[in-house]
């Protein structure tokens, strides 16, 4: 009741600016929808190129999100909890992909993991394994741009976590790993989920690092954003149709997860 009253008395300045803010996101969507070739949509969306790209995008973005979770949570924990020299520098480097143009990120990945890369060359010499121009290259590019979102979210949660519950768990006989698994992780679970969703969304929309590092080949490395880019120069209707698929998939997932994950428990 009081919540509703407060909302009704919201200052109009906030409402006005907020509305403009919302328009920044709503208008392009409207633009996309007005340009959609509805009569040909089914046919365009069912084409090989789109179906291949959609499958690849879902596979690589989900994979990238979970790899980000697997590696990003421990990294966030180290950054939040261990006071080692150079921690600020490491944190800055970790968040670098958030500001770096993705194309630059992709080039950097090539220099590191490519066939002539710092690490890539010895790996390739020893095993013949090559990341660029492969599905794994797409996943690596996605992880590179997506994981910082998870790390930043989770690190913030870990910093805000009052360590006393973890201390209490230790006094009960729980090993440090048990404490992390059964106390720390559940306590930050709203942030974990938010970080996972952010990372997934970023991976799904990833273009620049992928095209630079993993190349562009239908069925192997051509994700939805790459397909949009190619189509934009060929056939705008196809480009708009693919974009709509991308928007629909992300909206569906975000709305679904919001109901399931964010509506309750977000205060803990």
């Amino acid at each position, binding site marked *: 009741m009081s919540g509703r009253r407060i909302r009704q008395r919201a200052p109009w300045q906030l409402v006005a600016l907020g509305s403009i803010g919302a328009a920044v996101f709503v208008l392009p969507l409207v633009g996309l929808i007005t340009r959609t070739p509805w009569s040909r949509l089914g046919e365009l969306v069912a084409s090989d190129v789109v179906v291949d790209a959609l499958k690849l995008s879902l596979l690589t973005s989900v994979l990238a999100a979970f790899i980000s979770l697997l590696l990003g949570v421990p990294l966030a924990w180290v950054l939040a909890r261990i006071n080692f020299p150079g921690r600020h520098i490491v944190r800055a480097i970790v968040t670098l992909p958030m500001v770096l143009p993705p194309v630059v990120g992709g080039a950097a990945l090539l220099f590191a993991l490519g066939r002539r890369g710092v690490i890539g060359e010895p790996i390739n010499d020893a095993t013949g394994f090559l990341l660029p121009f492969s599905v794994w290259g797409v996943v690596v590019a996605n992880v590179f741009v997506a994981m910082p979102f998870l790390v930043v979210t989770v690190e913030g949660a870990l910093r805000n976590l009052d360590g*006393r519950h973890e*201390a209490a768990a*230790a*006094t*009960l*006989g*729980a090993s440090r790993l048990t404490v992390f698994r059964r106390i720390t992780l*559940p306590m930050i679970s709203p942030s974990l989920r938010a970080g996972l969703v952010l990372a997934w969304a970023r991976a799904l929309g990833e273009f620049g690092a992928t095209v630079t590092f993993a190349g562009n080949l239908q069925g192997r490395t051509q994700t939805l954003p790459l397909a949009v880019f190619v189509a934009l120069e060929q056939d705008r209707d196809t480009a708009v149709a693919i974009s709509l698929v991308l928007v629909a998939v992300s909206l569906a997932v975000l709305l679904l997860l919001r109901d399931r994950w964010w509506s309750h428990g977000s205060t803990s």
Partner: protein
Amino acid sequence: MVAWVNVMSSAGMTGLDTHLVVERPDGFVLDLAITIAPGETLALLGPNGAGKSTTVEALAGLTPLDGGHIVLTNRVLDRPATNIFVPPEERGIGVVFQDYLLFDHLSVLENVMFGPVSLGEAKPQARQLAEDLLERLGIRALGDRKPLHLSGGQAQRVALARALASKPDLLLLDEALAALDVTTRGTLRRVLAQHLAAFAGPRLLITHDPTDAFLLADRIAIVEDGRLTQVGSAEDIRRRPATPYVAALAGTNLLAGVNRGGVLTLDDHHHGLQTADTSVEGPVLITVHPTAIALHKQQPSGSPRNTWETTVASVEPLGDTTRITLANPLPLGVDITPGATAALDLQPGSAVWASVKATEISVAPAAARDS
């Protein structure tokens, strides 16, 4: 009941022997030696900032010692001189924290099971142990609830059950009653007294409230500015306070009597009192804090039973306050400001009216301290 016997037998015979030396980065130094025998309750009583929290952290292994030692049931837990430091999870020290620190994402039962499961107990056995403990503490019905839906008193009992479930060698209660409101405190103090008595190992009660210390502990250790200033029985402390702080809290009035539905009949005095705490019937120990008693020139309004006319036996300055001792029918100590003393023109022999609220009179079972 069987599980309970296990919990008791897990405590060793030699108790706790510790000399804690901790130098905090802010310059504060904790330096105190405590021993507690199995089955003994020691209250560590001190003002805020005296080093009580540091003591808890040092014992629990959350802060390493800079000197001294912690030996529990013949096991060295921390001794910097020989480079021994046992991490918290291997210490066997059960802690009931000030705000309980229950795990909100786990049910009450899972909270209690957490310790045994972490220590490698199989799930069914852990569950059995947890259910027995909850039963014992009278909260079995709460097993499926989440901690957020518990009252303060219920949460305290869950915290106690959780600490006991790991079968600790030492039970450490950190301001276990501080988070509760005045009316439930009396009841819970009684419950706590029972369960402390049922734990066979040494028990350490950290508190800033003399009432808790007087009613629950066998011995009281006073800590001020990181050092022990006095150790003794409640009687010793009250009779021979060693410092102004001890003197101020030693003034806490302790009476024996019988409670019948809130009506208190005192053993040694021909005067009755009314308490709001009706949870303890029969023989009780009664405490009244000296600042809870008001003095008036004329008869005040209010409950006639907790208002009586008396004379001043003595007036002595005590730091920032003045200690007035009343004559019969109730020889109670009263702390008021020097200003009020002057305004009431109080001198030995002055006639005054005294009054105290029924909610300010705490009772505990008289048997509690005999355990």
